[in-house]
């Protein structure tokens, strides 16, 4: 064994699937001095990888995870460690059959082979299944089983053979050292192990269930909990033994009982996500020496498995009745508050990276994504929106929050999760000062990363009749939705409405270096007169979207950045990370100090005019400008802007004045029948009618401002992040154009009127073919919702130029059925009020 080195470029802690894939990909990307340590032995150090069931169902509803999974399957295949017996998700209920139809839709979107099977067809492939118990199945023939330990060994060997990697198993990390940095985050400097101390420029925590403990050594948080997934190996089973191979029969996922049955040579692995959530603290996991098996193969608690046993027996009685329970574990895996992996640089410590909460099915893809991120400053494989560890606010990092949310979603691992599904636990963490008034008006609150935002108000139910809004016929389409949203929309268009915008994150950057800083961070020119606003993309180094937000110039040396609640934590990390080290710019998160009401509609100027000291005329207070003034004595910052398409202001005041501001505006608005309206109008109906793009939906790092229709005519002289690829994109003919489409017919085969939820439904040609652009990007619905004022149901999607032509007829697949759609606008011209005359008042 080689001597423990004193210095390296990067220490990767952990030799599970993620750590191994990461060292392989770092080596491929040119990192030549990598050290990998693990406290356990090789090839199985005792983490979750060692007891994984190792199967991969390729279909996921989400784009990011689907991308990582398909890329991982490709890499496993390339490594020669994959077989593809196929997999069948079976349904015991009609509700699940509908979910399987939704699965078919996602399979179509990602180009994965799939078919729906009758019970008899399932029986043909899985002769030991009791077909009377099921209503049908979803068959994906490319469902595979991989050897994740072997894959890890191969990737480690590849890096080692290249001379880029030294590996130290049986090496325990005792400390992770950091040093303070002037005007910046502390920086990781070294890892102390029981073999010695090693200095490093970068440290990656790829320690699975132990990750929080290792991160804590450096003062960082990795919000996950070790959780039990029960699995029993039962056998011998003759029909399986006769195959003479590791796996010949398709893996069965018994979705309604949250279980799976997977052949493992002559026996069957029966796994469950149905038992009660069982969590362990990372400090309570036994060491390799103390564990009877491995540390993450905890003692099986049979009583938690008994109900599942009955379910399994019901599905496969002929083979399982007499099968012996030979090996059973409470296997530990990592759960996170929102179910997504934890990737990227930690927000507390510079150059300390997290590579945690990753399943076998995503391992190689994640290894590549993170290696790209560490190498280029941003990943290329996929937009890391849903996996970036920086997405969590501080209040989402507490142990309490982690445990509550994980307990809530554990049993949804095989659950039917609606795209608009809301959390039930740990709510009311962040509420605006207007909250009591909103509650009084019957607000139905949706969660935006801890922020409670009214989605609509039951108190506006009277508007439904007034505006003759129709309900939706199918429960799935109307779940987490209300016709009141459309009625509120029409009320805003006709009169005036108030929208609580407090969840928006507001950051002030100021100081002598601020102009240079903001010009570097943002695409559009920020050095504008005080009182100006700048709506601008924020680019990743690859020229794709990193964010999309508004900047206000409040003073010569102060700018306010306003960004969405879902992106606020990621954005804050990005902006802090790029602050100049000379201290010439300070960053202050003023979100908690502020609250904001949007007042919009034809009567907005009259309403606000009654109480505001400022001259609100278009000449004195032009569109897109900002003024500091007072409303009946309350100091406010007023920003004449609108995301909903009607004139008005975003009015911001100090938190302590919030309730007074609300009451003042509500009282002044009484004569105009002002109503509070929800984010359903703001974020969906109003926005889509205006063709406004949403970060995380239309806007992501795979697409450029040119493709999104957000490129300005001129490019500023100042350098900014992503400028070079942005300039290049402007020179090329776009290979995709963001379009708004209308749905021409909503009626399905059963005669029901359907409304796609905007969950990545594929846009197809009239022949039913997927549409893929020259860069391999597939056309899917990025947002969907009603356009009450344009009388159409609207979808947004990127289309290649040959399809991105107004009037082009295409189809959208929803729940495995095809519906006709038409390209209504190829580009960013709004369908509602295309000239923006209403908007500008």
């Amino acid at each position, binding site marked *: *064994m080689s001597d423990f080195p004193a210095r390296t470029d990067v220490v990767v802690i952990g030799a599970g699937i993620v750590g191994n894939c990461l060292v392989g990909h770092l080596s491929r990307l040119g990192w030549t001095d990598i050290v990998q340590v693990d406290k356990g*032995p090789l090839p199985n150090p005792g983490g979750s990888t060692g007891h994984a069931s190792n199967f991969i169902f390729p279909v996921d509803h989400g784009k990011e995870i689907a991308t990582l999974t398909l890329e991982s399957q490709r890499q496993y295949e390339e490594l020669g460690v994959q077989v593809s017996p196929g997999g069948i998700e079976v349904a015991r209920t009609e509700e699940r059959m509908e979910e399987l139809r939704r699965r078919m839709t996602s399979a179509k979107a990602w180009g994965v082979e799939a078919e729906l099977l009758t019970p008899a067809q399932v029986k043909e492939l899985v002769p030991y299944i009791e077909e009377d118990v099921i209503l049908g199945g979803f068959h994906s023939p490319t469902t595979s089983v991989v050897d994740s330990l072997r894959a890890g060994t191969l990737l480690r060997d590849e890096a080692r053979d290249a001379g880029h990697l030294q590996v130290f198993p*049986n090496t325990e990390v005792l400390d992770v050292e950091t040093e303070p940095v002037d005007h910046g985050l502390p920086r990781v400097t070294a890892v102390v192990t029981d073999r010695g101390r090693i200095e490093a420029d970068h440290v990656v925590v790829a320690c699975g269930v132990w990750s929080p403990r290792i991160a804590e050594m450096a003062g960082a948080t990795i919000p996950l909990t070790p959780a039990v997934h029960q699995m029993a190996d*039962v056998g011998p089973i003759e029909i399986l033994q006769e195959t003479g191979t590791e796996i010949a029969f398709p893996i069965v996922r018994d979705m309604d009982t949250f279980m799976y049955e997977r052949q493992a040579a002559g026996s069957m692995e029966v796994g469950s996500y149905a038992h009660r959530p069982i969590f362990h603290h990372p400090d*309570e996991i*036994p*060491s*390799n*020496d*103390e*564990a*009877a*098996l491995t540390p993450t193969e*905890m*003692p*099986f608690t*049979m*009583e938690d498995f*008994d109900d599942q*046993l*009955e379910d*399994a*027996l019901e599905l496969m009685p002929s083979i*399982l*009745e*007499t*099968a*012996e*329970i*030979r090996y059973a574990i409470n296997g530990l895996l990592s759960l996170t508050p929102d179910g997504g992996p934890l990737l990227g640089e930690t927000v507390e410590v510079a150059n300390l990276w997290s590579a945690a909460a990753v399943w076998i099915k995503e391992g190689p893809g994640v290894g590549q994504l993170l290696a790209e991120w560490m190498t280029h400053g941003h990943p290329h494989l996929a937009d890391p929106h849903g996996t970036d560890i920086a997405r969590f606010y501080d209040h989402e990092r507490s142990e309490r929050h982690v445990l509550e949310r994980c307990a809530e979603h554990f049993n949804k691992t095989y659950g039917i999760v609606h795209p608009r599904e809301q959390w039930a636990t740990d709510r009311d963490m962040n509420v605006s000062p207007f909250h009591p008034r909103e509650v009084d008006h019957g607000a139905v609150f949706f969660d935006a990363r801890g922020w409670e935002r009214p989605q609509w108000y039951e108190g506006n139910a009277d508007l439904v009749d007034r505006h003759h809004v129709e309900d939706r016929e199918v429960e799935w389409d109307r779940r987490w939705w209300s016709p009141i949203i459309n009625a509120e929309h029409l009320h805003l268009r006709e009169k005036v409405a108030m929208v609580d915008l407090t969840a928006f994150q507001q950051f002030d950057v100021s100081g002598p270096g601020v102009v240079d800083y903001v010009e570097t961070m943002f695409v559009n020119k920020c050095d504008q007169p005080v009182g100006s606003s700048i709506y601008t993309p924020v680019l990743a180094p690859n020229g794709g979207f990193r964010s999309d937000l508004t900047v206000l110039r409040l003073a010569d040396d102060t700018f306010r950045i306003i960004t969405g609640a879902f992106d606020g934590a990621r954005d804050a990390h990005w902006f802090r990370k790029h602050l100049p080290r000379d201290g010439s710019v300070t960053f202050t998160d003023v979100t908690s100090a502020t609250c904001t009401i949007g007042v919009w509609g034809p009567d907005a100027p009259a309403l606000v005019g009654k109480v505001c000291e400022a001259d609100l005329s278009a000449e004195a207070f032009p569109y897109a400008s900002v003024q500091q003034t007072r409303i009946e004595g309350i100091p406010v910052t007023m920003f004449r802007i609108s995301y909903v398409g009607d004139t008005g202001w975003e009015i911001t005041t100090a938190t302590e004045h919030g309730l007074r501001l609300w009451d003042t505006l509500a009282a002044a608005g009484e004569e105009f029948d002002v109503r509070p309206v929800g984010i359903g109008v703001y974020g969906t109906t109003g926005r889509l009618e205006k063709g406004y793009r949403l970060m995380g939906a239309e806007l992501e790092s795979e697409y450029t401002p040119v493709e999104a229709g957000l490129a300005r005519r001129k490019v500023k002289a100042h350098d900014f992040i992503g400028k070079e690829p942005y300039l290049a994109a402007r020179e090329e003919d776009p290979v995709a154009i963001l379009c708004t489409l209308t749905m021409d017919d909503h009626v399905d085969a059963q005669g029901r009127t359907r409304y796609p939820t905007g969950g990545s439904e594929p846009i197809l040609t009239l022949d039913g073919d997927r549409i893929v652009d020259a860069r391999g990007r597939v056309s899917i619905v990025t947002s969907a919702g009603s356009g009450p004022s344009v009388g159409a149901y609207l979808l947004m999607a990127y289309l290649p130029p040959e399809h991105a032509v107004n009037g082009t007829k295409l189809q959208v697949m929803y729940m495995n059925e095809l519906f006709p759609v038409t390209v209504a606008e190829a580009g960013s011209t709004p369908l509602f009020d295309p000239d923006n005359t209403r908007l500008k008042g």
Partner: protein
Amino acid sequence: MRVLACIKRVPIPGAKIPLTDDGTAVDDERLGHTVSPHEECAVEEAVRLVEAHGGTSTVLTVGPPDAEEQLRAAVSTGVDQAVLVPTDGADWDPQRTAAAVVAAIGELEQADGPFDLVLFGNESADAGGFQVGIRVAVALGRPMVQGIKEVEVDGDTVRVSRPTGTTSEVYELPLPACLGVREGLNLPRYPTMRGRLVSRKATIAEVTVDGPAGGQSLVALESPPEQEVETEVLGSGPEAIERVISVLEDLKVLT
């Protein structure tokens, strides 16, 4: 015939056994639990004897309420009845345990008739006192042989044998009798899925009995000093063959 198997719930440790802070017990909070391999064979033998000769098999333990897990595990492999003699959670000494077992057997026999055979594991997996079985047999006035690896019932007698070096001793005992059996007596079956579901619904009888404590008490447990294990990689691929062969020769695996 009626066969009773006596078992003891013990933790399943890894290579390093965690102790409680005061050093008087194994810290089993994070450990799984089982019974000793000898006792698994006792349970298996009870099931097999009843399968062969008819009758009833019973499993009994003196232990904490959690020992129900081991009783149900025995039922899931085919034992007919399960009896818990609840303790206060502490590990009773051999005399007290034996007295409780004797008292429980008395009650069970009064209700349903005598046991033809009472099977013990040769020794428990944790304390290893080798005492309880013999003390019970003496108290019941029944013959007892330890170290058994073969059992054959024929009418009113049981013929048993135990290995002694290169040969083995064979005994014939009149029934009722007690036996201390060893791992290797049989190959215990795993529970079947159906068996597990049966055991889940089985009634665990409780017999509350106790006995006087004996003179033996535990002073302290100590972990042996950790052994340094050195791992040497002999090489990889075909070029490692010669080194591997020479190591195997040194170990006298190859000659």
